[in-house]
């Protein structure tokens, strides 16, 4: 009963005119960021943190969350019209979406992604509303050792599930943790790895790392494409922005299944929107009566994945809000934002600031309605963004990144850092090292070391504390499985293939 009161009070918070305005700003910027190649949700959120510094945390977080889920809506527009996902998770949408556009059904493809995103996004928020409280009551029993093993699990899952090489994923994670150790050690007051640069005493801010790795690196890649002449061209919207009865009947099932797949995958650490949309696509192709149409403009191939990658965002917020531990790159940036506003997500937040948590969650119901309007009748406006010449767009992204980085401390050290991490991000992309694990590790690194040392202090230096409870043992086993999976799965598959052959 008390919960219901909190949920309803959340609506009272998010329906305040000021918060409606920030929800609108957030989803609008999210759509723009999603449509534009170059700045993704991670860099977009990171860039806004220093600018929104003085704002009320509730309003600021409502806006940043709007960018996060809004970007997924915008990403599909780019995927359908230029076959380049505006945002990584839209990659599956670009296959059949672009084929539909080529056949003159761009309007239907855009409509089904907006409607599917809306239905699935709402499924996701309902899931978030229902699952948040049971999880927080479990999380209240967590001590430092449990938190350490939970973060260990999140990191191993992310590092072995993103990218093609588990070794490189682990490398990226360790690099992120190493960058997190730069600065003054909070417990002993010792400066570590500061290389005698005074600005490094406070550590390397995650904002500059994220902006460098995501925005700057994308500028380098984009300008390289432009020089090479392989930059894609945008298609015109053709056909009515609505579905025929037959198209709608074919889409309903994929939207529901995609919405549920996306939410479940989103809750789990590591997998994320890209894997959710791939799973939805393969599911739809397998159960379809006409699988041969997939890849040639099947509407199910747009409806399913696009729904999955939208409910994934709400799912990904579950561990972030209830446990305070994000399961991927973008939610790690969200955690960084929470911390910078002095808000620590986790079970205690639900007890101490129910207005903030439920205001944020409820604002997502409202935001999804706004996004449906922005992305259906008004999609033509956003498509115009695709006609901005890349030769102008990419240089502007550098300037915007410079504003965001300089706004943090008013120091050019941060500008050098975004340039440095931009080059790192560009090189890592070429040699196939994923950057999402690095960002997650960087944000979690400080908390992870603290909980490690607190657990050791409590136990008097006895390592047994990490395998002393059911929760820690379970999490350690899950971490071990996620490390071993990439090695075991191919063998299992090989064995099964052999069995089929006989």
């Amino acid at each position, binding site marked *: 009963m008390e919960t219901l009161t909190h949920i309803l009070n959340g609506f009272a918070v998010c329906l305040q005119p000021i918060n409606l305005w920030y929800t609108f700003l957030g989803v609008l910027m999210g759509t723009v960021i999603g449509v534009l190649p170059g700045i993704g949700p991670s860099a977009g959120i990171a860039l806004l943190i220093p600018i929104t510094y003085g704002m009320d945390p509730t309003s600021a977080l409502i806006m940043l969350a709007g960018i996060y889920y809004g970007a997924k809506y915008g990403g599909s527009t780019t995927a359908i019209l230029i076959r380049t996902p505006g945002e990584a998770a839209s990659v599956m949408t670009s296959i059949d979406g672009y084929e539909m556009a080529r056949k003159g059904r761009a309007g239907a493809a855009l409509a089904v992604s907006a409607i599917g995103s809306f239905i699935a996004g709402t499924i996701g928020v309902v899931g978030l509303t229902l699952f948040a409280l049971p999880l927080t009551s479990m999380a209240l029993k967590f001590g430092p050792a449990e938190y350490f093993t939970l973060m260990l699990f999140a990191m191993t899952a992310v590092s072995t599930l993103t990218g093609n090489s588990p070794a490189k994923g682990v490398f990226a994670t360790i690099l992120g943790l190493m960058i997190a*150790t730069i600065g003054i050690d909070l417990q002993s007051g*010792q400066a570590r790895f500061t290389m005698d640069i005074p600005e490094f005493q406070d550590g390397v801010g995650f904002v500059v790392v994220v902006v460098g790795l995501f925005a700057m690196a994308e500028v380098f890649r984009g*300008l390289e494409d432009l020089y090479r002449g392989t930059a894609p061209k945008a298609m015109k919207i053709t056909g009515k922005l609505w579905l025929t009865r037959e198209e709608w009947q074919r889409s309903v099932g994929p939207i529901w299944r995609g919405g549920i797949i996306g939410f479940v995958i989103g809750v789990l650490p590591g997998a994320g929107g890209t894997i959710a949309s791939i799973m939805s696509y393969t599911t739809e192709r397998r159960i379809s009566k006409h699988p041969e149409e997939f890849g040639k403009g099947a509407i199910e191939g747009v409806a399913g994945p696009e729904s999955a990658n939208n409910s994934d965002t709400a799912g990904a917020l579950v561990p972030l809000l209830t446990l305070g531990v994000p399961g991927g790159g973008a939610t790690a940036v969200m955690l960084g934002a929470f911390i910078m506003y002095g808000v620590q997500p986790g079970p205690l937040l639900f007890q101490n600031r129910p207005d903030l948590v439920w205001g944020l969650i409820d604002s997502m119901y409202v935001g999804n309605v706004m996004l449906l309007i922005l992305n259906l009748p008004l999609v033509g406006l956003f498509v115009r963004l695709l006609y901005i010449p890349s030769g102008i767009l990419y240089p502007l992204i550098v300037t915007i990144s410079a504003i965001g980085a300089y706004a943090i401390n008013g120091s050019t050290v941060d500008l050098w850092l975004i340039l440095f991490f931009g080059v790192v991000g*560009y090189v890592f992309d070429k040699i196939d090292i994923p950057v999402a694990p690095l960002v997650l590790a960087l944000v979690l690194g400080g908390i992870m070391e603290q909980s490690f040392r607190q657990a050791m202090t409590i136990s008097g230096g006895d390592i047994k504390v990490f395998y002393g409870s059911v929760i820690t043992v379970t999490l350690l086993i899950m971490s071990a499985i996620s490390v071993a999976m990439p090695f075991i799965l191919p063998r299992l598959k090989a064995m099964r293939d052999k069995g089929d052959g006989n």
Partner: protein
Amino acid sequence: MADRIIFVCMLILAGVYFWATSQIPSLELGDPLGPKAFPQLLGIGLLVAAGMLLMEIIKKPKAKPAVPTAETDPAKRPHHGVVAAVAGWTAFYVLIFEPLGYVIASSIYLLALTAYFNRGRWVTNVLTSVLFSAGSYFAFTHLLGVSLARGILPF
């Protein structure tokens, strides 16, 4: 080949990190671990990652035909020169950012990049560079209260 270079870099980095960790002065007061323990764990973790990579290098089948790679596919061939030039020009932007101020430095930076990558459209490029720099400066400093480098301009 690239993987082997990464492997060597990982070993070098682990070495440097272990050395830097040993340089941290430690005063163990009430903290059984001190500031060095966690970094040491990370150094070991890096060596583990290097070991995993070595296994992947050994296991990977040598020839992978039919998949276009950076060497064979012209659409994927890298142009490191362009990237290096853009990075160099951005470094110059950082250098002049504070001495000249945000508005002038950004105008110069944007003008050169758009002149090269959006060739021939002079009016658009000049207008975008100057108006965006000046507009964003006023928006951020006056409306949002974010301070940007003023430089040699009086406002």
